[in-house]
């Protein structure tokens, strides 16, 4: 260790001697950063500034490109926050995000625990279980649309065959089942991420810990509680945040299936932003709702993160 630092110091002494050389060395961070910085400024920061501006322009404009000429106003925020549908949609968003993330975590943890055990053909089974992660969201959507077809879908056929129902629900057309029917493909596509990161965390636990616990007579539950869980809780928190954000923003697993319907039953904020802007041509209120959802995401992540760490982990 000391050798390395000494070498490092030696290098610095022998670094560029000329002023041009020093300048160039100091300029490198900026030269290397300029392509990403341009991207960040042009494609992320500027659009964000623009969307904030659009949300603060009087909301009458129907033309997305002409909204910059409207007078400044907070009417969009007033409209959005006084609209009862906003809160109904928020409730749907909460249900969709929390249930999808929770089920993904549960299935992800279960499959990770299974796959961390010794078995024949483990590599193949792992690949099969992880495959949904790579399936495009649209494709997942159309498969579930096919499987959950109300009259002849294979799921209803199975439900009829085991005698659970006589007809089977009209999944995507019935407001009482539509949310569950969009959560299904979301969990299917979302859980392998948990499997992946939790499996890596599980495999990093030294076997000796389990052997020692077994020698001491610890039960399986105790081994999970005192060895496995402490080793994977950090990864779990990270996975919950990333999957939660991903679900909160989901478009392609809801819109092709229901478009937010029936009767708003699957209209999350992400879908509502899209339809407000591109179906009803209210760019102002869509932008306002977008800004509110960024604020909401920041507040939830910032407040939930420390609580989860302290209380449950």
């Amino acid at each position: 260790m000391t050798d390395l630092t000494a070498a490092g110091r030696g290098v610095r002494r022998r670094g560029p001697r000329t002023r041009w050389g020093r300048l160039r060395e100091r300029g490198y961070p900026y030269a290397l950063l300029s392509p990403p910085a341009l991207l960040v400024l042009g494609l992320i920061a500027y659009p964000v500034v623009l969307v904030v501006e659009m949300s603060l322009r009087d909301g009458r404009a129907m033309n997305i490109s002409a909204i910059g000429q409207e007078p400044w106003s907070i009417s969009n925020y007033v409209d959005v926050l006084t609209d009862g549908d906003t809160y109904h949609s928020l409730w749907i968003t909460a249900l969709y995000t929390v249930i999808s993330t929770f089920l993904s975590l549960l299935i992800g943890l279960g499959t990770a625990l299974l796959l961390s055990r010794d078995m024949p053909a483990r590599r193949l089974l792992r690949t099969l279980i992880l495959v949904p992660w790579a399936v495009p969201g649209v494709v997942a959507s159309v498969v579930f649309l096919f499987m959950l077809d109300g009259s002849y879908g294979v799921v209803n056929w199975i439900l009829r065959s085991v005698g659970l129902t006589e007809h089977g629900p009209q999944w995507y057309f019935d407001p009482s089942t539509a949310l569950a029917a969009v959560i299904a493909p979301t969990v299917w596509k979302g859980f392998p991420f948990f499997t992946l990161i939790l499996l890596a965390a599980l495999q990093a636990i030294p076997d000796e810990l389990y052997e020692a616990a077994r020698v001491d007579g610890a039960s399986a539950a105790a081994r999970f509680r005192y060895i496995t869980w402490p080793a994977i809780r950090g990864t779990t928190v990270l996975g919950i945040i990333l999957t939660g954000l991903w679900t909160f923003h989901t478009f392609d697993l809801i819109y092709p299936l229901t478009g937010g319907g029936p009767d708003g039953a699957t209209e999350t904020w992400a879908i509502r932003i899209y339809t407000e802007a591109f179906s009803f041509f209210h760019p102002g209120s869509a932008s306002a709702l977008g800004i509110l959802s960024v604020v909401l995401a920041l507040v939830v992540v910032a407040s939930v993160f420390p609580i989860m760490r302290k209380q449950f982990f």
Partner: protein
Amino acid sequence: MASTRAAAGSGRRRGITFVVTAVVAAIVIFPVYWMIVGALLPTSITLSTDPPLIPTHGLTLHAFVQDLTARPVAHWMLNSLIVTAAVSVISMVISLLAGYSLSRFSGVGPTSVGYTLLLARMLPGTMLSIPLFVVFGKLGLIDSLGSLILADITITVPFTTWMLKSFIDSVPRELEQAAMIDGTTRLGALVRVVMPLTLPGLGATAVYAAILSWSDLLFARTLITNPDGWTMPVGVTSFIGAHDIDWSGMLAAGTLSMIPMIVLFVLLEPMLVRGLTSGATKG
């Protein structure tokens, strides 16, 4: 005696684990299987009162042939391929440069770029699509694949930059410094020393960017209005009509759009696993 009993016990355990995992894997993979079955069988058979779970007859490639001859599926594929290739390459270059700066330099510049990239992940795509639509409209880029490429990069780079940073963190600085003593520039050291050592990270970046851009529906729907510029996801949803759905045609197109991603995933899975878990397992 005791040891053989223990071995038999662990053999039985392995067997039970295998059976349970195999059942789980079968359930997980069933939608993929059922899509392929739906693409290979006429709709009258798959959507019937008694669909065959393991079809033995009536399999036909008709829907695939229809897709490729009567519908512009090949054209959508080509559009998707162009966008995906461009997004992957640009994401690799930009996140290598940004990830290197974040890993090696401190200061206002790298830090603020880093935080902006983290913050970008809080932005819903549906919101981002509104100003991007305006900006690309002003630039006259609407309906061009270029707009789609730029929009997809805003989603991939915030993730891949941090992923590559953690790969570059594990490359010892001394290696570059040695190369620089030997007379190469910092850029030379980056290209000749750091890049070869982060190949798995670059591979993970490419796969991640490819899967994301190949799957994008949102930006393709908002930024491309002309059917000539449709990509696979938009094309697949176009099979859903107002009154009925061309099921086998749609499932065949879905299969065609899924297969490249699964192949990519299976081939590059080890790299991807390391990439996605690089930041995760430290916590």
